[in-house]
């Protein structure tokens, strides 16, 4: 296929357009399908972008911090805490280490267990917040030294629970992308059906055109142009409605930046503008394929 096939579509050919009679319901079906599918695609796009952002944010926030958790009988807890702090202070690659206050730990646990948590009565481990320096530390070496100095200490460098989160976010993003592909596929299928219906309804027109010496490419162009423009128009409407929908989604950024809103942010708003040209392209190829195949059946 030549590039000119696409520029021809945009330039248009009055005469070639008119050889196919305007047909009501397939026109409507195509525009509606394109609008509905683009509307859905805007949300799928928002989902992909948001989960992508989520994965980045979790990754960034957690990458440079770690926790040492000390579980020990009450009597040994302070001694072990001190030992751990000493170890951390002499470990290269660690910028800062700080034992958390009871109040801080309570605040951390409160969202999960409620405000009435009897912290004193429970064997809550002591938490030490570790901030990594730029060059990073050797976590295996640190683990061994901690095991020797403070048997109750466990280094939690977050990778263990960060990984499933990142994987979950990645899956969500994949889900969004898959949805967009499925939406594109469904749209191609429906436009193919509409194009086939239109070709069948116009078999007499096609016959006449063939008889006066029209090549398949000429006939196909008349149909393809019509369906492409309808899909483009429908898709623009769908994209605008979808973006309005996304703009009015409640913001979920309250949760301390941990969660993220489903909406678009910044240049993310440009992505939905890609959908109408994409929909037009899907319509272009779907109709073109259907038309060339159908023509061989018809005459």
């Amino acid at each position: 296929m030549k590039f000119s096939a696409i520029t021809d579509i945009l330039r248009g050919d009055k005469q070639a357009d008119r050889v196919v009679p305007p047909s009501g319901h397939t026109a409507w079906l195509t525009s509606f399908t394109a609008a509905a599918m683009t509307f859905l695609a805007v949300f799928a796009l928002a989902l992909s972008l948001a989960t992508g952002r989520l994965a980045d944010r979790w990754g960034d926030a957690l990458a440079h911090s770690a926790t040492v958790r000390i579980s020990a009988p009450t009597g040994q807890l302070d001694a072990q805490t001190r030992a751990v702090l000493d170890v951390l202070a002499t470990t290269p690659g660690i910028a800062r280490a700080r034992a958390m206050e009871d109040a801080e730990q309570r605040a951390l646990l409160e969202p999960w267990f409620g405000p009435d948590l009897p912290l004193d009565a429970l064997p809550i481990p002591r938490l030490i917040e570790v901030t990594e320096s730029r060059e990073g530390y050797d976590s295996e070496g640190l683990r061994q030294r901690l095991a020797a100095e403070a048997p109750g200490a466990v280094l939690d460098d977050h990778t263990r629970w960060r990984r499933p989160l990142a994987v979950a976010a990645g899956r969500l993003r994949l889900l969004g992308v898959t949805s967009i592909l499925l939406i594109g596929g469904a749209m191609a299928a429906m436009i193919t059906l509409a194009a086939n219906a239109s070709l069948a309804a116009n078999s007499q027109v096609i016959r006449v055109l063939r008889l006066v010496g029209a090549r398949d490419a000429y006939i196909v162009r008349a149909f393809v142009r019509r369906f492409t423009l309808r899909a483009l128009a429908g898709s623009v409407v769908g994209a605008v409605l979808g973006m309005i929908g996304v703009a009015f989604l409640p913001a979920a950024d309250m949760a301390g930046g941990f969660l993220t809103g489903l909406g678009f942010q910044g240049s993310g708003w440009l992505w939905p503008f890609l959908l109408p040209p994409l929909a037009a392209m899907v319509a272009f190829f779907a109709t073109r394929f259907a038309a060339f195949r159908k023509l061989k059946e018809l005459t």
Partner: protein
Amino acid sequence: MIAFENVAYSYGGGELLSEVSLRLAPGSFHFLTGPSGAGKSTLLKLCYAELLPTAGHITLFDRDVHGLDRDEVAMLRRRMGVVHQDCQFLDHLPLTTNLTLPAAVSGRQAEAADLKDLLGWVGLSRLGDALPPQLSGGERQRAALARAVIMSPDVVLADEPTGNLDWDMSLRLLTLLVELNKMGKTILVATHDLNLIRAAKQQVPARVLRISKRRLQLAGADL
């Protein structure tokens, strides 16, 4: 221009045409006659490659029809003007657009002056803006002839072009065909109207082919 060599055609039942051999020389004028249902339209469809022979060979402009792809068939049809038995217009477009369709599909612009001449020639000057369904049978057939010749084809094939016409109008259409032939076009007219053939023979040295019992014969002078 058009040559048949032992051609047979069957729509799936028995053979409708058998052992048909035929050669249309450039500039010749032929009638094709035979009873209704004999296969006149079928033979014309073989001539413009809407149907392919089930046996034998058909050569159009020195090309074997079996070797043609769809684009090549389209190109061949641009060199032929066909008046179909059922006319075949695009009913949603005005007559002028229908007449210039052969030019439009081959990417050419029909001259407005030519179109005007052509409409006058077939006596349809007033009806350029009419839609085909609004025309009478005779007007449609004249329009079909106008469309057939707009690209100045080498060959004109006409299938019962006077089927819907009264005698005066039939003669007028015949005159148009004779004029075309005098301009050097090869003409093949299928008709069961023997009076028309007799009238034509006074104007051109036309040959008469007859389909009889599945075979094509050259009819004698004794029509």
